[in-house]
């Protein structure tokens, strides 16, 4: 089963800009990434630029808008595409990730097809 794990930021909630990650956090993250790779789980991973662009179709009319968008939860930070035995395994990996990066949300969605 393939899952997309990603972090979100709720831009409807005003918050201080995130502190830059500490050296320790970066090391722990690198270790976790290596761990997922060594466990044969990680298919692809990457960081996401905060600059996003939205393409919207409103009754056939296409508009292109550059972010940030005040009213949405944006996919931000990073993502990992993993192949896990079960959703519970994906949750366990997300738990390990969240423990390192601290407060905030990680979302897990199964990927069909692809």
């Amino acid at each position, binding site marked *: *089963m393939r899952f997309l794990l990603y972090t979100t930021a709720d831009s409807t909630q005003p918050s201080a800009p995130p502190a830059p990650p500490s050296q320790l956090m970066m090391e722990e993250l690198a*270790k976790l990434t*290596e761990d997922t*790779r*060594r*466990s*044969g*789980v990680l*298919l*692809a991973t990457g960081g996401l630029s905060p600059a996003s662009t939205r393409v919207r179709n409103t009754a056939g009319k296409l508009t292109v808008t550059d972010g940030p968008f005040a009213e949405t939860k944006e996919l931000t930070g990073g993502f990992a*595409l993993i*192949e896990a*035995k*079960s959703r*519970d*395994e994906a*949750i*366990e*990996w997300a738990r390990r990730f969240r*423990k390192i990066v601290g407060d905030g949300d990680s979302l897990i969605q199964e990927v069909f*097809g*692809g």
Partner: protein
Amino acid sequence: MLQSIAVTDADTHRAIDAVWRIESPRLIAGLTRIVRDVGLAEDLAQDALVAALEQWPESGVPENPGAWLMATAKHRAIDRLRRNERLDRKHEELGREALVQQEMAMTDPETFTKDDVGDDLLRLMFISCHPILAPEARVALTLRLISSLTTEEIARAFLVPAATIAQRIVRAKRTLTEARVPFEVPAGPELDVRLASVLQVIYLVFNEGYSATAGDDLLRTGLCEDALRLGRILAGLAPQEPEVHGLVALMEIQASRSRARVGPSGDIVLLLDQDRARWDALLIHRGLDALERAERLGGALGPYALQAAIGACHARARAAADTDWARIVALYDALAELTPSPVVELNRAVAVAMAFGPAAGLELIDGLAAEPSLKGYHLLPSARGDLLAKLGRAAEARPEFERAASLTQNARERELLLRRAAACAPGAPPSS
């Protein structure tokens, strides 16, 4: 330090199950190094799992669950050895306890490095795929120890009773204990033989999953993912071995087509007829990367890398008509030299037909007709029928397809062959 989270027992049990699947291979590998017995190591790991199931619903999942399981299992190891010591004071056991104490000090869960863990896991793979075991026992033991599948899951995936798998695993562990198989990564010429066995086990698992069809148990098709995961783990542990990357490349590329090879009604779609838009681009990309790693390591490509390179020719072609058949023929030449077999010759003949015309291919296939090992092999008449049909010799093609249909074990394939036979009947609309 324990983390307290408000969850139900059922949630915790599922979390423990997930932790177990992630941690147990490393746990069993580390324990095998200490107690030098796979069976005992697995028992100890199971003891730790039972302890987790008892304690974690109360205490929460520990901060570092892998380290918790390891520490618990080691304590169980010492308890058991002390108990044995009381029962019969054998010098060997006393010596072993000293060894365990020493190992405990050396391998404090917080300090042992990733490399140690990786080496242990690699040693465990070599043990579970040891040639002293029958191939089906290697498969069962590897899925159990490295893929963390339960006996029931393995049984369902391989369509055999759970008792059969359980017995296979028990016997395999006993055989390894009795033969005192050392816990090590083999060196020198033995390494090639032992590595070949590991690769063979992984590819067996993959093919078992790949031969499953749409209606089958998901556990069965899941074997492809299990094999890929095993291959990717092995590639991390033995990155200097080109054939490991070759096998990974082969599996990634084959798996990339798994959705395209089954039609809407569950029928088999042949490679050249597949909708290439349905191929999994991510797996192709990973497969081509792995193949490149195998090639970069230098030397002549091994059998897995050659097969992957053939798959890569298909993967790179945007349309079937763009396939570089001349290169595929050259790769089959190399494969036939390395692992000569009538099946490879047959595949080569098909490639020759694609590269240089059906007549050239037919000539080669006719040379294989008397090959005893291909006597019951449905792909021989199927390929011959295909080339005859392409040459416009429908009357000769028809009995070949019918013969192929009578030989195949796969119902979907039989349907396809009978359809092709029908298309060769007099008066049938000409097939494309």
